[in-house]
């Protein structure tokens, strides 16, 4: 097997368009992280490691027979639920007032990350199984499959992840044809129960929502993140302050600037033009995801591809919205750019599934 054949074999199940865009994100991530970490090369190298692992994982999933994934859906979901329950036992690791991690001896893992893929996978598999005879009952069961882990995660508390998983599951329900009557009805019910939900929120979550309405009322406390983020974005202007020249970034005014607030760094240094370019990159990936979804051949792949694409968009929207001050600070990283291996891995696994679906469509065609 010569090099060309190897390359062909390697790329057989890879969507080159999507890969190019994801490569673009990886590049942006590394370049931006260098600035956000004040030129900390170790940080950049660590992220490069994360990217290599994540891309490898993507490649593996893209080359995996699709029915493996379907077959794995149920066991992964059950495993995820068990782990989520274990987090609530003394095995859970508490940090900064939230218990999200699980000590498994060799490392700590975050089961909610697993659920980001496991939940839509499970739901899509469930719908596929009963595809022929979908009844209201199926949607109800699927909703339960969604709400159980979401509730457990929200209780940790991890509002950001809960929202994202809730969204990914909702997209499955929506694409699976959940009737408008039920959606509108539940929306009304949710609005009616908002006061009760409010009282169920943790104090810090309430504060974050209140701060969204008026961040200035606690400028040095809870509103600090939002205000400094908005200052960074706003002071960037149209052209930005230039790479490595963001004052908010380099003088430590921006909190969590390599992770959740990395978009503020981008915005401050590259301005509105930079934001348009970055949004364009997201739109490109999402657009590609929509095309793959539209062309997906089976019920399962359609739901899965649609959910992955829309969830990816949701990620980006929630993060940018929170940094620019239109959404509360809920702790969602900027997808494919924020520093961190877990989020990168989960996302790339999703893209691996997307590529796999794209290839499967081809197989059906030939």
């Amino acid at each position, binding site marked *: 097997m010569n090099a060309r054949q190897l390359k062909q074999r390697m790329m057989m199940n890879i969507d080159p368009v999507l890969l190019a865009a994801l490569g673009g994100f990886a590049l942006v991530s590394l370049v931006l992280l260098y600035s956000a970490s004040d030129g900390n090369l170790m940080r950049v190298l660590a992220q490069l490691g994360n990217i290599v692992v994540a891309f490898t994982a993507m490649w593996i999933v893209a080359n995996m027979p699709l029915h493996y994934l379907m077959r794995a859906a149920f066991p992964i979901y059950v495993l995820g639920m068990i782990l989520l329950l274990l987090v609530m036992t003394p095995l859970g690791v508490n940090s900064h007032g939230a218990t999200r991690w699980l000590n498994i001896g060799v490392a700590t893992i975050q089961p909610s990350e697993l659920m980001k893929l496991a939940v839509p996978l499970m739901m899509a598999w469930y719908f596929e199984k009963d595809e022929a005879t979908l009844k209201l009952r199926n949607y109800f069961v699927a909703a339960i499959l969604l709400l159980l882990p979401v509730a457990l995660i929200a209780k940790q508390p991890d509002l950001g992840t809960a929202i994202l998983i809730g969204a990914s599951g909702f997209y499955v329900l929506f694409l699976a044809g959940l009737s408008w009557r039920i959606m509108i009805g539940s929306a009304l019910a949710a609005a009616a129960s908002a006061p009760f939900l409010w009282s169920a929120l943790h104090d810090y979550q309430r504060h974050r929502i209140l701060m969204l309405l008026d961040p200035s009322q606690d400028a040095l406390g809870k509103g600090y993140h939002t205000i400094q983020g*908005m200052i960074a974005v706003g*002071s960037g202007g149209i052209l930005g302050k230039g790479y490595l020249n963001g004052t908010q970034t380099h003088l*430590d005014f921006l909190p969590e600037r390599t992770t959740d607030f990395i978009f503020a760094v981008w915005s401050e240094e590259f301005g*509105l033009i930079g934001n348009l370019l970055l949004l364009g990159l997201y739109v490109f990936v999402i657009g590609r995801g929509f095309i793959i*979804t539209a062309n997906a051949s089976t019920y399962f792949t359609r739901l899965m591809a649609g959910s992955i694409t829309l969830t990816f968009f949701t990620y980006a*929207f929630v993060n*940018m919205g929170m940094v620019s001050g239109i959404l509360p600070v809920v702790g969602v990283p900027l997808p494919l750019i924020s520093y961190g291996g877990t989020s990168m891995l989960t996302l790339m696994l999703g893209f691996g599934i997307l590529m796999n679906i794209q290839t499967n469509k081809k197989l059906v065609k030939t």
Partner: protein
Amino acid sequence: MNRYVELKNHQREIYYFRLRLVLSLGFVVVMLVILLLRFFYLQVIRHDYFHTMADSNRIYVVPIVPNRGLILDRNGVVMAQNYSGYTLEIAPGKVADMDGLIAELSKLVEITPKDIKRFQKLLTERQTLETMPIRSQLSDEEVARVSAQQYRFPGVEVKARLFREYPFTDMTSHLIGYVGRINQNDIDQLDEDDVASNYLGSDYIGKTGIEQSYEKDLHGKTGFEQVEVDAGGRAVRVLSRTAPQSGSNLMLTLDAKLQEVAVKAFGEYRGALVAIDPTNGEVLAFVSKPGYDPGLFIDGIDTETWDELNNSPDTPLNNRALRGQYPPGSTIKPFMALAGLFYGTRSPTHAISDPGYYMLPGSRHQYRDWKAGGHGAVDMFKSIVISCDTYYYGLATEMGIDNMHSYLSRFGFGQKTGLDMEGEVSGLLPSPEWKSKRYQQIWYPGDTVSAGIGQGYNLVTPLQLAYATAILANDGVAFQPHLIREKRPAGGGAVMTEPKQMFDLKIDPENLKLVKSAMEAVTKPGGTAAVASYGATYRIAGKTGTAQVIAIKQGEKYDAKKVSEYNRDHAWFIAFAPADKPRIAMAVLVENGGHGGTTAAPIARKVMDYYLLGKIPQPLPVVTGKTGDQSD
């Protein structure tokens, strides 16, 4: 197994699915538009606002306090200077348990109960976030000890600062004054004068004396540094710098050694001395005894020491030279004589027969001369030499209070001299108008009689009397008394104070000659201050005076031995020398000194000897003039 079902519904399902997908796409587009609008709002519409916010985040303006100007005497001897030292300071806002902290700090450096009291007083005066000194002048070892343990004490800092120092301490306390920490009153005043921004970062301001009166010159111009800071408030780099401009150095008209000679000449006596160069108004010596240590006030004085100073019967805080008001007594007589000659009330040769008392026409009341039995025949010359009261009782009565008031005003009595020092008082030159306004009483002929010998309502300050003496010495040509000879701005150059002629009384030279020669005779055998010119190689003119502290009843005799010390008469001596061409004129007041010729005149003589001959009455310690740091 359900393949056929799927086949059956395939098209429809795809259709519905794609419909939902398109709806999702619409949702995505709407959300993207929202984001874009938000970016546009933040980065274009409100960019200026956030740009300013980002700058105010990162840019701090740090004031750079200018070095205070030095105060030097006319020969360059340093009278107020700066030295750098270390203070231990506490930021009250960052300390929860102040007493505990102080107790801990006392284990590292010595903190006396006085330090603590002073610190506590500072705390009540100004409640701000800035640091307050609890101990100053730390030794290098103490600095090292505190620095090593500083992590244990948040809010505690060792600061290197410039301190003010007055090498002559209590000898010049009333002249130089002192600086003190800026308090709320000072801040209000600075705000009112619209110079508050020049005091950002300044800790001290002139409170009294030259330090207060020339605050504007001494303070200098505050510089600014724009520094970029990070979120922790640490300065990262300097963006721009406007250098501060040091205050001007001030050269006084005063002669430091002369001042020292004068102060020492007083010995244990309280009193005041003002010496003026009559030819240009330069104040050569300015003494108010006792003085105090001005250093006590710089970082706030503790209540105990303050009470001690404030309640002392010697009133060391009272600037006697500027603000002390005393009856001029017989020192008024030369001026009265000139008035008599001016109005023609007396001719030089006219002699009265002095029986030892004076009676107003139609009254039996006797106004006694100081000498029982009287002086016999007394003409104007003799009246000054022997200080005949009877002569002046009659002269005043015949001249009338209005003429008397009018003529004496010309010499500055009853008015401020306009010396360049804040807080001067005007003394009192009585008149019928004044009396009716003040007491709603008419002016009695008896009032004129006692006014004629400088008693009664008359009050002068030592400065005023020195000024009047200088005018007389300079033949009626008055020069504005002033303390600053030269201002030397930090940038270089020097601004001399031009002598300012106030007026020329155009006194008849014959009259002047008579009065001046009589005053010269005062200091010779037969005069009331015969000791004054004993052995002198130059000619001295003078006049003694006595200011009564308690009134003596009619028919009683004043006996110094029977009167408690603080109620004894004050002794005056005015003098100028050389009598033919005066270069120094002065007024000396010795509180409770009794007779002017005995206590005040010798002081004047010592001062004149030094000024005119360079004769030092006793060996003086050499004051080394450390110069303050004048860079930037």
